[in-house]
Structure formats: C-alpha cells, structure tokens
C-alpha cells in the first residue's frame, strides 16, 4: 500500500500521470469499506482531500460549479443549491447518515458509479456537466455520458473529476425527488427518482424531465415518455400512455433488495402521481 498525498491540483495531476493505476481517494466512504475488507491490498492511493480548490461551490456564468470534493453535508445546506437545485440538496440529504454525508463527496459518488447513487437522478434532470482533468488537459462530459455500466465510468486512467457544472434551470411548474428504500438512512435504495415539469399557460407540457436510479445498470432519463409528453395536456389517456412508456427506457433487475416487478410498479406509480399533480411540489 502506498499513500500519495496531493497538496495542489497540479501535483494531483502529475501524480495521477505518473501512477495511472493509483486509486484517487476523496472522502473514503466507498474506498475504506473496500480497504477494510482487504480488497485494496498492494494498491497505491492518491489522496485528493487536501485540494481546497476542488472543495468549493462557485458561481459560474449560467449556473454554479461544484468542486469534486464538496461533501453531501455541504450541498444539502448550501443556500444557492437549495434555491436553484433543491432536488440535488434533497438527494444529498438522503445519502447514508450524517457521518457519511460529512465525508462523502460528490466526485467520489459519481466516480463510484453505483446504480443506486442518490444524487444521480437530480443531476440527470438538471443536465449537469462533469469536468474531467488529466495532466494533458480538460474535457467535459454530459452527466449521463460519464457512466459505462455498473460501477464503471468512461474516465481514462490518470483522469480525475475536477468539478460538476450545474446550469440554472428555468423555474419549474412542478418538481419531485423520491427515494424508495427500506431503512431511511444508510439503506441502498430500491429506486430513486427526480422529475422537473414545465407547463404552458394552457396546461400543455412545455418540457418534462424524469430520471430513475436503480432501474438499470446506470441512471436513466425517460426519453420516450418525455418526447411523447411534449406539447400534450396531461389528461388521463396521455398520462396512461406516458406511464406505459416508462418501461421502454429502463431494465430493472431482481436482486437481494427488490424484484423487477416491484421496482417497475413503484416507479410507474410515482411517475403517474407526478404527472397528475398528486406528488411533487411547485
């Protein structure tokens, strides 16, 4: 086990280039579980936690940039985040308990790429962009394009998450975050979802965005239902059809936490409630 500590972003990039197989370490809430179980023996760790520049939430031209090292505890209480991206604040407040929130970071959460990352559905509907850096330069990916599969990302060896850009959304007519789990804190959820809806004056849908976690190997936007709903009024047959279309974009699994049928049913019920205005808030 080698433990490298980066003091500045430049040093982090140099060390990551020199040791492309080193595991970046942020809050350690995922990595230390693996380490305690002996799964990281012999590995090199690159500790990013001293990088103050990556622990900031800063205003950007059309939104905000959230540094990779910003913790869930900060995000859930940050006034700007509560004002413009309340679904993200809410989701961060459901990550584990207070101890996990205090150390777990947004960058670590994304890089970990669990199908059950609570902040993922909000980041998907806010259309966040993830900024990646390596010794040779920077690139930006749309949030959904970061993921390659269960616990897999498209980050190259030596590449680090620097920050997450959140664009300001127009004020939604309705919004929702929902986590369906077993024990409120700590439990890995069965399903979580986030929705944003904008209505025209006449009640027709201008735009709707809905994302589901734990319903496929990676977080999913409901592209088929979203497209179908655009420009339509939310009457009974329209809602029925949209709820049916939900299944087109997900592939829930049976596992120890839940069954495929339960997950699909739970998600469809919440989606229906959201479209009918019974669930969610303005």
């Amino acid at each position: 086990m080698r433990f490298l500590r980066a003091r500045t972003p430049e040093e982090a990039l140099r060390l990551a280039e020199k040791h492309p197989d080193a595991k970046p370490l942020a809050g350690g809430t995922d990595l230390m579980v693996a380490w305690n179980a002996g799964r990281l023996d012999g590995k090199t760790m690159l500790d990013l936690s001293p990088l103050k520049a990556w622990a900031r939430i800063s205003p950007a031209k059309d939104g905000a940039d959230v540094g990779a090292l910003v913790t869930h505890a900060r995000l859930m209480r940050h006034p700007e985040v509560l004002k413009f991206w309340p679904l993200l604040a809410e989701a961060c407040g459901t990550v584990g308990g207070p101890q996990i929130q205090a150390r777990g970071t947004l960058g670590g959460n994304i890089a970990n790429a669990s199908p059950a990352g609570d902040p993922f559905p909000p980041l998907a509907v806010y259309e966040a962009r993830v900024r990646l850096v390596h010794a040779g330069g920077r690139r930006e990916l749309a949030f959904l394009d970061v993921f390659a599969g269960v616990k897999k990302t498209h980050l190259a060896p030596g590449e680090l998450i620097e920050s997450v850009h959140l664009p300001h959304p127009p004020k939604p007519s309705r919004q929702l975050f929902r986590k369906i789990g077993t024990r409120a804190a700590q439990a890995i959820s069965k399903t979580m979802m986030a929705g944003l809806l904008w209505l025209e004056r006449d009640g027709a849908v201008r735009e709707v965005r809905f994302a589901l976690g734990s319903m496929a190997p990676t977080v999913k936007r409901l592209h088929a239902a979203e497209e179908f709903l655009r420009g339509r009024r939310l009457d009974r047959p329209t809602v029925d059809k949209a709820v049916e279309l939900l299944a087109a974009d997900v592939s829930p699994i049976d596992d120890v936490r839940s069954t495929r049928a339960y997950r699909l049913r739970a998600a469809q019920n919440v989606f229906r409630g959201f479209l009918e205005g019974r669930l969610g808030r303005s």
Partner: protein
Amino acid sequence: MKLTVNGKKRSYAGLPFKRLLDVLREDFGLTGTKEGCGEGECGACTVLVDGEPVNSCLVPVGQMEGAQVETVESLASAKKLSRLQSAFLEKGGAQCGICTPGMLMAAEAHRRAGGKKTRQAVCTAVSGNLCRCTGYKHIVDSVMAALKGRK
C-alpha cells in the same frame, strides 16, 4: 504527522492507511471509541473531525494531518459528566453501551450545530447510528432532555 486530539497536540509516525479508529484506540489509548461493523453502517466509531461527525473506521489517519479530532473522552470534565451524558444515565439511553459513545458524539454534533430541538431532528441526527438494545426511544428521550436542559 501532527493532529489535535481532544485539545492535545499529538504526533503519529505509523502507517498512513491505518484507520483513525485504530490509531485512537491503539496508539493514543483512547478506547472509548468502539468498533461495531467496521463498514460505516453502525456509527459506533463516531468521532468529531473539525466539528463534524464521522465514522472513524472509514478514515485513513493519513487524511487527519492538522485536523481537530474529538472523542467521547472529551465530553466529561475531570469530575463531571456533560449534560448529554447525564441525560443518557437518567433516561436509560444506554443499555449494553456499545453504541453509546457513537450516539453521544452524533448527538453532540447536532447540539453544537444548533440543530432543532424536535424528536424528528434528533432521529435524523442519530440516523447513522444503530442500537440493538434500546429500541431508540430512550436514546431520543435522553438527547431531547439534554437539549431542553431539563433534569
């Protein structure tokens, strides 16, 4: 490497990937902090780092350079228990006691952060802590009593 533990400056020269939990117990002799699961699930190992509650089983000590760490030993003065500790005694907040140091530190973090004095807020504050004995009611009663300053 230097850090502050319960107000005292300490130095540590061992392996950076040793868990803070083990350094506190083995190197610094502070055995008040307990290990339950070793996986971040139970909160028995909760200590405060720069005022925030963390699971010390999930922190490599190498990350604690310059940090202020507080353990359950910091709560009482030489002769007197803290109000929170007294409340746990009076209201039956502890049975076997394994979860108690972690519960106390999670509750202490809530108190210091000026957290709400409602049962719901207290439940959320200790939601990362498991207790297999009390059924939680007496724990919440204890914390509420301490927050409200009643005897």
